[in-house]
């Protein structure tokens, strides 16, 4: 049973201070969410991308083996050994980093301390070389892609050293570093067989064909894995392989590292990144 104003009749009487406090709480207005966050979450909710675990994983096509008999391959290898070796050395480096075709980032990006507007794709592409330091404080994620290999999303507030795109054929390992902020990575079909390590002040995470986030925050490093497995090291301590759906935290204050379920927000952000970047990663080569 209730009073006309909805209060239960059996409520004990409130003193004047409590009544004033109650009125004050009832008068509190709503709190506005960040419009970009709201729009992103709404789109994910409506499309179903909010729950990547429920989506049918897109089949990743396996690269076709070059056809040919063993004898033919031996003959070709013998005849063209020096030429192939020279060709490979020149063309071994992976596809250059490029700003992704779809981008919601606004502001200036600092590359090797030079400020470049986020919409000046040409200048940014030219500056994106292995070892470049990137500092991004604009709005939206800065999204880079090494075609066919890996897509890299850089969140606002991130300072990092850009890894080389994994080479195409040999020496297929590259390393980058995150000093602060958040990066998200997802690999493409041509990444198969390569490794990419992202180091932070506390830890390092090595991906081998995965979708993951490396977050460097005041508490320490958090590595969230959406798919695949990621090998995490904390200094000389081997944290082991972090499987899909899990996170590994390495704390800056020396507390015991923690393994647990990945953050729901990361599950959503990484799922959306994977879905959005898949067509960009697999754009046909123009050269």
């Amino acid at each position: 049973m209730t009073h006309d104003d909805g209060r239960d009749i059996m409520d004990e009487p409130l003193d004047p201070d409590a009544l004033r406090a109650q009125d004050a709480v009832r008068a509190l207005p709503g709190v506005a969410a960040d419009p970009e966050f709201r729009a992103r979450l709404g789109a994910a909710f409506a499309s179903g991308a909010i729950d990547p675990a429920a989506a049918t994983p897109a089949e990743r096509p396996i690269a076709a083996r070059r056809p040919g008999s063993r004898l033919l391959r031996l003959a070709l290898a013998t005849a063209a050994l020096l030429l192939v070796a020279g060709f490979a050395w020149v063309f071994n480096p992976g596809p250059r980093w490029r700003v992704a075709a779809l981008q919601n980032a606004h502001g200036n990006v600092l590359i090797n301390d030079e400020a470049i507007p986020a919409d000046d794709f040409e200048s940014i592409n030219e500056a994106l070389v292995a070892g470049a330091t990137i500092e991004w404080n604009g709005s939206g994620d800065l999204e880079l892609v090494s075609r066919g290999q890996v897509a890299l999303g850089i969140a606002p507030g991130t300072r990092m050293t850009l890894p080389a795109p994994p080479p195409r054929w040999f020496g297929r390992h590259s390393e980058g570093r995150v000093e602060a902020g958040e990066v998200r990575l997802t690999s493409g079909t041509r990444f198969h067989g390569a490794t990419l390590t992202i180091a932070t002040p506390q830890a390092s995470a090595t991906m081998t064909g995965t979708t993951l986030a490396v977050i460097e925050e005041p508490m320490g490093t958090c590595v969230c894995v959406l798919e695949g497995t990621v090998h995490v090291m904390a200094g000389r301590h081997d944290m082991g392989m972090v499987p899909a759906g899990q996170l590994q935290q390495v704390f800056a204050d020396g507390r015991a590292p923690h393994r647990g379920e990945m953050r729901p927000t990361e599950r959503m952000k990484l799922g959306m990144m994977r879905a959005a970047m898949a067509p960009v990663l697999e754009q046909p080569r123009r050269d």
Partner: protein
Amino acid sequence: MSPDRPTPPAESETLVPPPSVRGVEAGPRLDPAVLERVRSRDPEALAGFFEAYFDRVFSLVHRLLGDRTQAEDAVSEVFLKVHRAIDRLDPARDPMPWLVTIASNVCRDHWRSGAERMRRAAMPVDDPAVRETLTAGTNDPERDFVRGERERAVQDAIAALPEDLRESVLLYDYSGLTHEEIAASLGITHDAARKRHSRALAALGKALRERLA
């Protein structure tokens, strides 16, 4: 991140939501035909559902947690759970109490987490989100300033309450649930819910005595 595993959706989160009463933030209510399409995960209907309820859910979660980043994390988890359980929604009932139950469960998981214990020392008194309200200002800057100061004082006092009392006053007075609904959500008796609410208001009244007089 805490070693504790987050609580899976409780049974009450998937049952038919109890009858709702007029809430302090009553807003547009979707008709049963639309809710039926929501239940079948029609994307357009889901978008409409999100538009109808997100602001109220986010406001509650933000008031409960007191921090924008944590509120965004938590409300993302709320809508993930909603999406997973949406086929069990009863189109004949107002979804708001069900959403509030899920939101308060998520916030309770968050309070139990190690990350929250680490962050509670830095209560964001000046969180801009608290100042960016949905109400339009008046043409009286002085009145707007006084109103803003009053709201900050109330939010600070709420944030300083123990979590169970904070939850009680926000669910009843801010989100408009009845004591029965709150009791069902928290797994306590109706009497316990009422007493908790009375204690919350007594504590708030004491904290705000000088500011609201």
